[in-house]
């Protein structure tokens, strides 16, 4: 019989306001094996942990039940406390009476009753707990960064700086991401290219960094410290090692009408292209959807002009397999499609554009060489209306419920730069709220209003009406003066909400990393572990975790790198000792467990057994590779003869819990 101590936590008022904690401690005193039961305000505090440690010594406890928050939160804390007091850390069980009880119930009586039942189940389980010893597994000292925007670049550079190998997988032909399309960055108005392209070059030149451009992650297997990743290098029909990036093919290609994604489709590129002059790697790529040679075998112009013989129309997708100790997700974002926002006439008028399109129209490398001209007629716009929160903070169902966070600042930047360059242009900004809580952000916005004379109007635009003379009548409300406004504009700029890149969802499935309802990756803890996924060994960098501007993205990217460096610096990782175990006497060699095991941890071998009549028989039985098993428990459910058991979660322990709940 175990000697069990029960410790009921108040968690301030988090638990104690809904659960009568004293009654729980009192009720559990009578459970079999319980020799001590008490409550305390904050069990996770030093004093709370000391209470557990001292009680273990004083009462000679062999098992501990803590009724508190989710084990995800503090199981480690309490296991360590128990260990320091001399008992095996796996003799500690948590009854989650916060997330699964006090937070979701209102009635004190029924919540208390449920908390007691959860406590009884934990006591019943700990009766059957046995000490477990964790093994160790090696760490592959190499990291993978998925996504080569500013987030991925910064993470990779920091990891490389610490001396570890790191690979970047980028699905576009070049690294750089969205920041390459931006002209200037708030609040200092320094040129985006001037601060980004040196980092891109650093990545290319750093011998610790390998860039897989025009590539995607195809498969992920393994676990923290030991991932095996398949990377699909998409055929670009150009030999990366031979191409010098001279660009002659991109001038000679006869297919001239391919919408140029780098300029948001506002001008055209060729079927063979280099996205922009500072691309890294600076290697041409053939767009198979448009190339005449690839489509019908008639052309070959680029191949004729290439002086180094880099063009290879026969190139195929290839798969590269690599091992990594840690994976960083930096998949970034896209502006949402505005097709559902017909009131703004985005699909109906060329002069209604998104902010990212505006960014290209003011960029020296853009379709107008940086001169702000209307897309419809190439004339200079004299009145510009900016609309904020298009699809952000939107509960109508067309857009996103969250705030996209970056739009207030970039709209202030656009408005200010327009007024500076074209003082004859009237600029209006319609907003719900102006949110500028960042270092030097509010000062920046005030400069736009006070020094540059941008008309900020609180209210939303209800309708944009294209007229026969090419102007846009903007109908809006001014909430402060309670008036309806009609403004004749030449250009309307919509601050479209941002959303995670579409590739994120399938990637999350491969990584078994969790996401929220908006497809942003979930962090292990929203405050205390913001750059880690709940899945061990997966880290988060940039907007894939939630909307962020560049300074925040870079901070988080470096934070993710620090976590990766901390992991890779270890030679061994402690394994989870809660792994499956086969009872060879009961195993009938049916292979059911082997088939369901997602990690390939189960193998079969022939073994000799002594039979009751003193003969020996050879039987085929399962055995589990403890270094590979992740303790998911699939095999224990699949096994028809009950031979598979999960240490720490054995069939008998789970039945004991169920019995205690149903009693």
């Amino acid at each position, binding site marked *: 019989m175990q000697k069990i101590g029960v410790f009921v936590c108040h968690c301030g008022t988090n638990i104690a306001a809904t659960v009568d904690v004293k009654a729980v401690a009192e009720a559990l005193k009578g459970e079999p094996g319980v020799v001590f039961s008490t409550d305390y305000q904050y069990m996770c505090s030093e004093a709370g942990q000391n209470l557990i440690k001292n009680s273990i010594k004083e009462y000679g406890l062999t098992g501990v039940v803590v009724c508190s928050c989710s084990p995800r939160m503090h199981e480690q804390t309490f296991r360590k406390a128990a260990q320091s007091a001399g008992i095996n850390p796996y003799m500690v069980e948590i009854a989650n009476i916060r997330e699964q009880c006090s937070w979701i119930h209102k009635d004190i009586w029924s919540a208390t009753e449920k908390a007691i039942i959860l406590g009884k189940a934990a006591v019943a389980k700990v009766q059957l707990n046995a000490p477990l010893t964790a093994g160790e597994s090696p760490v592959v000292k190499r990291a993978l960064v998925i996504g080569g925007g500013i987030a991925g670049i910064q993470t990779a550079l920091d990891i490389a700086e610490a001396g570890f190998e790191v690979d970047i997988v980028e699905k576009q032909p070049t690294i750089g991401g969205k920041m390459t399309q931006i002209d200037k960055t708030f609040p200092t108005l320094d040129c985006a290219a001037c601060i980004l392209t040196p980092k891109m070059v650093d990545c290319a030149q750093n011998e610790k960094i390998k860039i897989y451009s025009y590539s995607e992650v195809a498969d992920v297997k393994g676990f923290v410290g030991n991932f095996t990743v398949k990377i699909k290098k998409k055929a670009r029909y150009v030999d990366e090692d031979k191409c010098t990036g001279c660009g002659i093919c991109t001038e000679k290609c006869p297919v001239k009408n391919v919408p140029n994604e780098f300029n948001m489709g506002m001008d055209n590129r060729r079927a063979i292209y280099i996205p922009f002059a500072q691309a890294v790697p600076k290697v041409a790529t053939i767009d198979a959807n448009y190339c005449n040679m690839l489509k019908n075998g008639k052309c070959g112009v680029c191949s004729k002009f290439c002086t180094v013989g880099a063009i290879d129309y026969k190139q195929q997708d290839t798969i590269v397999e690599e091992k990594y100790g840690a994976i960083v997700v930096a998949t970034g974002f896209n502006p949402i499609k505005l097709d559902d926002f*017909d009131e703004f006439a985005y699909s109906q008028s060329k002069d209604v554009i998104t902010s990212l399109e505006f960014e290209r129209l003011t960029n020296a490398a853009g379709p107008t060489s940086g001169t702000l001209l209307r897309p419809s007629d190439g004339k200079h716009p004299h009145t510009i209306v900016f609309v904020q929160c298009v699809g952000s903070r939107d509960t109508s*169902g067309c857009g996103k419920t969250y705030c996209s966070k970056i739009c207030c600042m970039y709209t202030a930047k656009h408005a200010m730069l327009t007024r500076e360059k074209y003082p004859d242009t009237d600029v209006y900004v319609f907003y719900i709220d102006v949110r500028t809580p960042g270092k030097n952000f509010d000062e920046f916005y005030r400069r736009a209003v006070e020094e540059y004379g941008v008309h900020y109007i609180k209210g939303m635009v209800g309708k944009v*009406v294209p007229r026969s003379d090419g102007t846009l009548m903007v109908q809006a409300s001014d909430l402060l003066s309670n008036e309806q406004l009609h403004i004749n504009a030449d250009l309307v700029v919509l601050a479209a909400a941002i959303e995670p890149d579409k590739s994120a969802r399938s990637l999350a499935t491969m990584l078994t990393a969790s996401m929220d309802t908006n497809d942003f990756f979930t962090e292990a803890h929203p405050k205390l572990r913001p750059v880690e996924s709940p899945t061990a060994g997966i880290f988060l960098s940039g907007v894939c975790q939630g909307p962020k501007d560049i300074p925040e993205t870079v901070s988080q990217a470096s934070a993710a790198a620090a976590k990766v460096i901390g992991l890779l610096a270890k030679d061994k990782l402690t394994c989870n000792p809660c792994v499956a175990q086969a009872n060879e006497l009961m195993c009938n060699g049916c292979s059911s467990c082997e088939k369901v095991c997602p990690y390939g941890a189960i193998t079969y071998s022939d073994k000799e057994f002594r039979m009751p009549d003193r003969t020996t028989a050879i039987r085929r039985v399962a055995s589990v590779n403890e270094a590979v098993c992740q303790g998911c428990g699939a095999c224990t459910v699949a096994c028809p003869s009950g031979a598979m058991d999960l240490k720490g979660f054995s069939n008998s322990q789970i039945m004991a819990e169920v019995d205690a709940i149903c009693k």
Partner: protein
Amino acid sequence: MILSYYPGCTLKTKAKDLDRYGRKSAEALGITLEEIPDWQCCGGVYPIAKDEIATKLSSVRALAAAKAAGQDLVTLCSACHNVLKQVNNDMKTDEEIAGKANRYLGLSEEYHGETNVIHYLEMLRDKVGFDKIKELVKNPFTGKKIGAYYGCLLLRPGKVLKMDNPENPKIMEDFIRAIGGTPVIYPMRNECCGGYVTLEDKALANKRSGKVLENAKDMGADMLITACPLCLYNLNKNTDGYDVPVYYFTELLAEALGVKD
């Protein structure tokens, strides 16, 4: 095909043409509209308030009568259509409203939003079909540039009325094509005409209606059609000098089908 029909008060007084041409056209299209016996005023805009039960009751009676007849309920006036569909949705989805209304009315069978309410235009699109109408047209409006004026009530709230995309609708444009005309798409076609504000602030209603007509004319419309008596009133009364006549869509339909008087 027999369908229940809810005309509404305005169609018996100010908007007799909307009703008359609607009935004649329906007959020509092989549809019998059976007027609900003893229907009462839908309550105008008041039933749209969530905390009002009494004003919803007349709509519930009409909806229950159509249910008893086992027929879909057709409306013609934009406002009645809006009110009936919204009250129907309340009865289907809001237990509190449905409970109170049912307890008060004490109907022989409780009503919980079972009736399918459709606007006359939906009847044309879904029950008759615009292609069929095209075949039956005797006097097509060939060469006429006609602007559809939806107003604000006919389509919104889109999730409840489920008639067409409120921000970029096409049902009336398809109707115009069916009667042989050329639809003029102008962005202000789904904006408010000023509505009841005209009783209180003529200048504001004037401004609103003016914006609609100005935009319709600018985009080349010779005439406008509408399904709403109040829209027709505001567009005709509050604006001078635009020279864009406004008609009920049923009048054009009757004319096209050759049953106008």
